[in-house]
């Protein structure tokens, strides 16, 4: 485009004095015999330009819209008063929201449509041509600017006095450092790599129902059941949500014959009752969609699928590691208790996860 225009400056317009600076067109192909720009097509008059009746009509429409806007805004105020909120009644909020909103919206729209209609029908429609100047400053301006810098350099000795300059750079770098260090105390002083390894579960801790904290008898966990479980001490914990975010467990009962326990974990289940961490090993969503026929656990966030019969191995989705299993047994009264804490960190992987 530009190449044609460079050679055919437009209709009587003075080309910027600074513009005809020739710059490289790179690999652009410059036509030797370009077409001529035919210039702007003839301007078409609108109905409102020709017919004063139409113009008057348009003017009336615009003012009507503005008046309508006033009415709607007043209606919004009326709606604010006329539709109070009755506590506990969502229907009243719905009405308040609807009519207050409609009043405001129509008030705004009427202003907007009126203004646009005004500009389209009454204000002049003829397009105007304005010349562009090159973005680059003129040579004189640039020379002046360079001079300013040079003078600054000369008077300050910025370029010459290298000791001053370099020590300034050093100082400017160093002054940022406290600003970085000061953020250390955003988190507490303990090492997260230690904290992340421990949950509230420990030997003898009762498995209880979420949210009531009721203990669970093994016999009550019938085949096909899924129990959402928290450690008994959770409800007294000071950091309830933080501990729950690590300790939440899903208890399911399968037919013991369906379970393929790996070596050393045969006793982690009790009569087909297994407990697995609910926190996904991918990025930590609660994995709780238990399909009791297929024995699959699905994470609703990123669709990682775990096979409960196969030690919660990942069979689909982005997760990598099986869900950690909580070793469980029963106490003397038949209530489910943990044998120990999890034997590995629960939840998303982290850099030092597999360090001892």
């Amino acid at each position, binding site marked *: 485009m530009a190449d044609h225009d460079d050679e055919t400056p437009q209709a009587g317009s003075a080309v910027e004095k600074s513009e005809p600076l020739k710059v490289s067109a790179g690999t652009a192909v410059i036509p030797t015999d370009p077409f001529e720009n035919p210039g702007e097509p003839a301007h*078409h008059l*609108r*109905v*409102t330009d020709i017919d004063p009746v139409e113009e008057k009509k348009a003017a009336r429409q615009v003012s009507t819209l503005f008046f309508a806007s006033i009415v709607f805004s007043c209606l919004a105020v009326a709606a604010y008063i006329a539709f109070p909120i009755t506590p506990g009644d*969502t*229907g009243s*909020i*719905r009405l308040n*929201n*609807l009519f207050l909103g409609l009043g405001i919206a129509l008030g705004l729209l009427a202003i907007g449509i009126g203004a*646009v209609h005004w500009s*389209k*029908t009454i204000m002049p*429609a003829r397009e105007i041509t304005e010349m562009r100047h090159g973005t680059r400053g003129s040579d004189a301006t640039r020379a002046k600017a360079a001079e300013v810098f040079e003078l600054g350099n000369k008077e300050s000795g910025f370029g010459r006095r290298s000791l001053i300059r370099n020590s300034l750079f050093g100082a400017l770098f160093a002054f940022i450092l406290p600003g970085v260090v000061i953020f250390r105390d955003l988190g507490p002083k303990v090492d997260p790599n230690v904290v992340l390894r421990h949950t509230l579960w420990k030997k003898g801790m009762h498995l209880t*129902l*979420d*949210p009531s904290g009721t203990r*669970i*008898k093994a*016999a*009550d*966990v*019938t*085949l*096909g*059941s*899924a*129990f*959402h479980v928290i450690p008994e001490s959770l409800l007294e914990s000071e950091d309830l949500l933080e501990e729950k975010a690590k300790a939440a467990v899903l208890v*399911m009962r399968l*037919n*013991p*014959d*369906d379970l393929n326990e790996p070596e050393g974990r045969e006793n982690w289940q009790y*009569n087909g009752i297994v407990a697995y961490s609910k926190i996904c090993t991918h990025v930590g969503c*609660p994995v*709780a*969609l*238990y*399909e*009791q*026929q*297929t024995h*699959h656990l*699905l994470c*609703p966030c990123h669709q990682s*699928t775990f096979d409960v*019969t196969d030690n919660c191995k990942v069979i*689909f989705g982005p997760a990598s590691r099986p869900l950690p299993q909580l070793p469980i047994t029963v106490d003397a009264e038949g209530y489910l208790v943990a044998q120990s804490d999890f034997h590995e960190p629960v939840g998303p992987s982290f850099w030092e996860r597999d360090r001892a």
Partner: protein
Amino acid sequence: MKISPSAKLASSATKGARKSVGAKSKRTGRRSPLATVSLIVVGLLTTGGAYALFTSTATAETSTSSNSQATVNEGKKLFAANCATCHNVNGSGTEAGPSLVGVGEASVDFQVGTGRMPAAANGPQALKKPVQFTNEDIQAMAAYVASLGTGPSEPETKYLQANGDTAKGAELFRINCAMCHNVAGAGGALTQGKFAPALKGVTSKHIYEAMLTGPQNMPVFNDLNITPQEKADIITYLKYLEKNPSPGGFELGNLGPVSEGLFIWIFGLGAIVAITVWLTARSN
């Protein structure tokens, strides 16, 4: 090993979809181990089930003989005509359908009462469709199936009045149900084409029975996990949602940010682009 009656509930649930699992295995091949597994489960449970009845502390009220013999006989006829092809004449199950011994009235009322049974076609799971039987017929079949072995009976009406504790029900719903059915009961996806259905418009009784019997892939929530009163609370919350549409206006299916995003792109930005076209079009 002791197997409780509600263990049998589970088996009934397993049965619900076993047919489809088995059928699908013909197509995909890799499904057959699951079918085998569920067959084994079903077999074990049905043989051991009856003896374990009285040893358990668990749960659902059971009923064996509250129905008259005439109803049972009527149900037996209906069963033979409509169900026996898959579930066998005595309800002991075949390759195509699980045993119904011990699944109880509640299962029959849910499966047949929502139209899921008789199943129309093989698929990932039996789908809800227009109910095929009258209420009396369903009751008769339920009575017959209940006579085959003890299982959960239909819920007491006092739990179905939706007059429980809404807040407690909402909390229990979020913990136990929302991950599959969505916080507003709009439903959600499960693996391999299965899904948790939307709960809007489902009757209180069917919601209760589903929790109690764990149809298809839904886990069982027996009365010791979620007590009858808690089930009533959950029903109360779901009915509250039905009765009280969102105060913010149309709900866009309650599907969360995806439907909101689609809406703003298609209708919000769509409308605005249409306006920009009007705005810049030459007027005549």
